[in-house]
Every structure is written in structure tokens, then in C-alpha cells.
């Protein structure tokens, strides 16, 4: 057998004076890094297996462990970086497509960090949200051209709307890519916070049907778990066309993860690969998309808004104009930093465009065409905090999806190894011993805490701008100023430079 040229990425450091040989680390690591040597009465580590997920570090009762990046370096080379060399070694050894998890980690500019928010000074008063009412409630769905009111009531029947207490939803993450306990935590948190979570394309587990009012059910090209009952179980239906982490690429849940519960939820046999083709093979045009949208509306008697999720790609504005005209009630745009349970590395790191540009371009285009009222825009892909949300809404979003941020809230450490199924935090795994590490109640509480904290922060930022309803911030790009951007970038974002 030939030896591997891949040296360990990380080094496990153990303070032997602190180590009490309790072997918690040995039991906790699904990657089998730690081993107890009975003869020597000490614990040794195989660094090469470590993914730096901090599970052992966090659970070590004597804080004896730390993980460091392996200081071993190749000869300095600006072109042939360590990762460039390592990736070639790996492919030369396996002949396989490189996989990765979570969002694009390359040092592309983060445009949220190049936008600054406004605040009121002298000429208009700021508002203190602690003492004055502040409205974050958001309605997603098609809005009529005009609102005819008679006797204080809206005359026509409004198209179906999704009501959110705050403009934040949990992104589509399928049961399969994440564990049941994670799905349950998201459902519980969405339910308590009055927002939505999204099933992803893995179907809806029977035990989660009770959270239907706060569920968006997804229909993707593989149609896993899709039947009439599923379509009717949620508050809205989302057609998944694309995903920011892998635009133009299908999905593929390997057969070994398709165990009893997943088989039941996806409605496929145990052990069979769940392959989602790259396109929906009944959609080759906007007209075809319209057909799928209306087949879903017909199946649910026009009671539920239909969302269409696409990845942010070069022609996103024209595509979204088509989607709006095809009858979608909501368009979700997923930027190139969007997360994933598994994606080819080259696709994740090289395909798609930043959500900030995509969102601005789409909002501008829909306004220019006079059809912005026909759809709500949901922005996704790398939203990290409440300021990103406020900036997204000022750029033109109605609401945002958070996926990675939600998982970090419940313990994800961004090791990007979701595709191995060995998530030590019980999130991206189907191994029952790992899944049970995540307590759904505690995880839901952490998610609710995060949303509460963000709610307060968003209100503070709004109040500072002298705005008391999120609706007044929507597409209000005067509240943004660019910093460190070219004039072309400022044009596309539709914002002025700081100081202008």
C-alpha cells in the first residue's frame, strides 16, 4: 500500500499534567482521533483524523486539550498554497471529486461589511424601541396592485400570505443532511418565535407535522417525500431550483445515510441513493416553471403561497423577473456563500455571485418593471448577524433565511465536514449515538435566544434611523452608504458612497 502525502491539518495538544485519563475525548470523537493506551496509562491522538470541531476540547473536564493548526509549512508560494497542494494530493490518491460542507470560505469580499447604516441626528428624531412601539412583523406573498378599502375593510380577497413575527426564517435543510433532532429544534424554535423553518427536499417527518403552521415544505427535482398530504401539511410550498453553495448541481444523499426514518420520510427504500437531478426535468423554461407553480397551487386550492428558490447567478435579475411573472408569490435568492451539507468544492468556491449584488439587482429590476409588489424577496446565503439582515432589507429584501447561523447557534463549529456524516455535535449526522448528543429542547432554546437578541438589535438599529416599522426600511437604500467600493459596485448596489 502506498503511503499518503497528506500530513495532518491540525495538531491535538494534550496537557498531560491536566489529563485525568477519563477518556471522555476517546468516547466523544466520531473520527476516532483519541485512543487510550492501557499499558502506558495515557491517551494518544492520531492528528491526521482530527477535523478541528472542538468537541473534545469543549467536553474535556480538566481543559487539558487544545487543537492548533499544524505549523508544518510548504515552501512559501503565493500560487501553490497549502490548500492547493493538499487538494491535488487528495485527488491523486482517490481519483474523486473533492467534497466540502457549509458555505464558501474563500476570501472574496463580504459586501455587507462594505455598507454602513444611517442614524438620525438633529434633523429627525431617533426612536427608542425600549419605550416606543416598533414593528418587525412581515407578511410574505403577492400583494395586489391597489388596495380597495370599503367600510374599513379590504374589498378583495388577498392572495395567501405568510405571517412572520420577525423577518427571519430558517433555511431549507433536509432531514438527511441534518439530524432529526436538529429538524425538531428548528421546528420548535420557528413555532415559538412565530417564524418559518423549511423542510428542505427530504420530506416531512411524521412527528414534525404538528409544526405545520410554521413549516415551508420544499419540492425539489427528486420529489422526495412529496405527496398531497405533504403539500398540504405546511404553510407554504417552496420549489427548489437551486442552492447558493452549488448552483446548477443536483443533490445526492448517499445510500448509507438512508436508514429507516429517512427512508420513511423521503419515501424511498432503505439504503438506496437519493439522487436529485440537477434540473427539474419538467422545467426547461419560465413557462414550465409556471406550470409547476400552478400544479402546486391547484393541488392546494390556492391556499398557500408558492416560493421559488434559486441560486444567485449572473442573470439573476432577468430570471427573477420571469419567476415573478410565472406566478411565484415569493422568490428566495441564495447567494454564493450559502451553506450546504455536501457540495463539490470547486462548485461551492467558484460558482455564483454575492447575494448583496443579486438582491440589489433583482429589487431594482422588479421595481423598474413595476412588478415588485407581485413577489416577496427572501435573501439567503451567509447572513451572519442582525446588521446583515437590516442591510439586506434596506437593499430590497422582505426577509432573510438563515441556515449556517442557526446551526452555529446550536453548536456547529464550522469544521465543514458535514458530508462525512460524523458530526460530533449531532447536527449533520444520522448516527443515533451522535444524534442524541443534540437535545432538541436546549437547541430550540438557543435558537430562540438568538432570534430574541437579533430582534432587539434590529429594533435598535431601526430606531436609530428614526424608523418604527420594518416595512419603511424595505428597499430604502438611502439608509445605506458604501465604503471601500468602486463606483461600479456602488451603482449595482444602488447606494451612495460614505460622505455623499
Amino acid at each position: 500500500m502506498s503511503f499518503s502525502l497528506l500530513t495532518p491539518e491540525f495538531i491535538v495538544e494534550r496537557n498531560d499534567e491536566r489529563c485525568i485519563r477519563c477518556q471522555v475525548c476517546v468516547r466523544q470523537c466520531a473520527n476516532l482521533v483519541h485512543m487510550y493506551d492501557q499499558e502506558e496509562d495515557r491517551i494518544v491522538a492520531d492528528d491526521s483524523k482530527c477535523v478541528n470541531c472542538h468537541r473534545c476540547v469543549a467536553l474535556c473536564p480538566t481543559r487539558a486539550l487544545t487543537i492548533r493548526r499544524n505549523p508544518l509549512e510548504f515552501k512559501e508560494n503565493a500560487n501553490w498554497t497549502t490548500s492547493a497542494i493538499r487538494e491535488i494530493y487528495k485527488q491523486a490518491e482517490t481519483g474523486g471529486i473533492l467534497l466540502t460542507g457549509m458555505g464558501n470560505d474563500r476570501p472574496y469580499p463580504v459586501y455587507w461589511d462594505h455598507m454602513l447604516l444611517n442614524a438620525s441626528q438633529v434633523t429627525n428624531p431617533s426612536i427608542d424601541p425600549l419605550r416606543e412601539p416598533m414593528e418587525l412583523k412581515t407578511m410574505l406573498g403577492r400583494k395586489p396592485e391597489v388596495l380597495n378599502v370599503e367600510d374599513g375593510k379590504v374589498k378583495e380577497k388577498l392572495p395567501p400570505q405568510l405571517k412572520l413575527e420577525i423577518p427571519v426564517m430558517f433555511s431549507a435543510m433536509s432531514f438527511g443532511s441534518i439530524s432529526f433532532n436538529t429538524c425538531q429544534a428548528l421546528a420548535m424554535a420557528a413555532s415559538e418565535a412565530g417564524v418559518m423553518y423549511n423542510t428542505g427536499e427530504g420530506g416531512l417527518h411524521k412527528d414534525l407535522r404538528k409544526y405545520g403552521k410554521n413549516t415551508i415544505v420544499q419540492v425539489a427535482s427528486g420529489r422526495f417525500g412529496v405527496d398531497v398530504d405533504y403539500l398540504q401539511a405546511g404553510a407554504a410550498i417552496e420549489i427548489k431550483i437551486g442552492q447558493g453553495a452549488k448552483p446548477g448541481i443536483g443533490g445526492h444523499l448517499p445510500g448509507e445515510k438512508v436508514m429507516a426514518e429517512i427512508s420513511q420520510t423521503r419515501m424511498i427504500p432503505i439504503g438506496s441513493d437519493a439522487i436529485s437531478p440537477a434540473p427539474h426535468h419538467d422545467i426547461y423554461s419560465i413557462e414550465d416553471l409556471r406550470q409547476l407553480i400552478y400544479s402546486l397551487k391547484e393541488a392546494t386550492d390556492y391556499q398557500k403561497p408558492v416560493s421559488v428558490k434559486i441560486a444567485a447567478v449572473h442573470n439573476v435579475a432577468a430570471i427573477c423577473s420571469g419567476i415573478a411573472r410565472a406566478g411565484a408569490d415569493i422568490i428566495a435568492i441564495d447567494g454564493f456563500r450559502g451553506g450546504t451539507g455536501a457540495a463539490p468544492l470547486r462548485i461551492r468556491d467558484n460558482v455564483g455571485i454575492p447575494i448583496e449584488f443579486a438582491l440589489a439587482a433583482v429589487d431594482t429590476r422588479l421595481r423598474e418593471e413595476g412588478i415588485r409588489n407581485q413577489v416577496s424577496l427572501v435573501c439567503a446565503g451567509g447572513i451572519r448577524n442582525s446588521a446583515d439582515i437590516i442591510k439586506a432589507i434596506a437593499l430590497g429584501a422582505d426577509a432573510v433565511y438563515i441556515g449556517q447561523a442557526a446551526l452555529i447557534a446550536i453548536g456547529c463549529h464550522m469544521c465543514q465536514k458535514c458530508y462525512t456524516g460524523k458530526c460530533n455535535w449531532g447536527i449533520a449526522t444520522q448516527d443515533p449515538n451522535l444524534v442524541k448528543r443534540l437535545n432538541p429542547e436546549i437547541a430550540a432554546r438557543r435558537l430562540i435566544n438568538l432570534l430574541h437578541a437579533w430582534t432587539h438589535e434590529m429594533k435598535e438599529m431601526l430606531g436609530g434611523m428614526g424608523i418604527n416599522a420594518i416595512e419603511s426600511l424595505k428597499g430604502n437604500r438611502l439608509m445605506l452608504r458604501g465604503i471601500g467600493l468602486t463606483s461600479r459596485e456602488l451603482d449595482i448596489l444602488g447606494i451612495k458612497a460614505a460622505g455623499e
Partner: protein
Amino acid sequence: MATIYARGMHYKDLNEMIKKLVKINEKEIILKNVQGQRYIGDGIQGEYRITIEGTPGNDMAAYMDGPTIIVHGNVQDATANTMNDGEVIVHGNSGDTLGYAMRGGEVYIKGSVGYRVGIHMKEYMNKKPVIVIGGKAGAFLGEYMAGGTIILLGLNAEDPQKMVGSHCGTGMHGGTIYSRLPIDSFKLGKEVMQIPADDNDMESVNIYIMKFCSYFGFDYDSVRDRRFWKIYPYNKRPYKNLYAY
């Protein structure tokens, strides 16, 4: 029995009428002069029968879960899309993507079908979808197929070369295609192999061939005049070795 004259009607109104009839427990619905209205029988559940005279539009019987639809005419694209249960009997031809992601129930087409028929069909527990095609099929028959059975009779094509288009069974990782005539190997996807069907195989498809013959008035013995060919995937995990872990 209730009859609806569909001429000039918008699909939304037509489907609303059908759903209303179903609600009052009507078991036999006849639609006359159907003129391309889409979504007929979309998402309907229960046990009843709809007979269509004319040409229904795209997505007929999509997500359907139980009822029977009989069409005296041709059907267009995406018939039986993600169908869960029930039966579709078409006294004519079908357009493209018939039975896309179909999970259960049976579809009988007297004539020929278009492209990508049975794409991503799947089976689950006691649900095993079946499509029987009397005539010819277009390219990509059974693409990504993950379960269920497609029976291709090729009754109007004694020339096997013209019985099915190219890329038959491409990406197939479950289920079986039975063909009355052998399919040229250059038309088969690399994921499948073709062997003569054995007695057990024939036993499993006889019932569907019998039903096909009785629905459309074919002579069973002349349809079952030879041993069929069986097309099935080499393995359930075609992409197992694609990735570097």
C-alpha cells in the same frame, strides 16, 4: 354519475367543479369536450372515476392519490407527475415526462409516449408504480429511474431500432424496464444491462399486460408472443465512487 361540458372553461373552474363533485361523494364523473385544460385530477384523493373525452392539458393526474382517470384521446406533457396512487388509462398517445417521479399507481398508454418517460420513478414499501406503453417511447426512457416498472410493448414497431430513443435507462439505479423487443445496446445508458426475462419476471408483468389488453382490446396471446427483455441497473449506487472523502 355527473357530466361536465368543459368546452371553453378555464382549468381553475373545471377543477373546482370536479373537486366539488368529489366532495358530495360523486363516484363517476364524465368530462366532455375537454380542450387542453391543465391540472385535471391534480392532487385528488379517494376512490372514484373520471372519464375524459377530448384532450386534457399538461400535468393531468399530478400528485393524484387514488382515483382512476380514463382518457378517450391523447394526453400531453407531465401526466401522472409525482402520482402517488390510482390509475390512468389513455386510449391514445402521451407527451413528454409521463410519470415523472411517480411513486405509485398504474398508467396504461395505448399508443406511444414522448421523451423522458418514467424519469425518476421510485418505489416505496408496498408502492410500486407501473407504466405500460403500447407503442414506442422517446429518448431518455426511465432516466434516473429509482424504482417501479416500465413495460414497453412496441406493438406498432416491429423494427426494434425505432421502438425507443437513445439514452434509455441513463442514471437508472432502481426498478426495471421490460421490453417486448430487444433494445440496441447503443441506446442503453451505461448504468444498465439487458438480459432475457425469466419466468419469474414474466410472471410479475403478466397481470399488467393482461390489464392493458383488456383495457384496449388487444389479444393477450399475441402481445405475450415472446419472452421479453429485462433492463435493470448494475447497482443501486451508481455514483458511489465519484467522491473523495
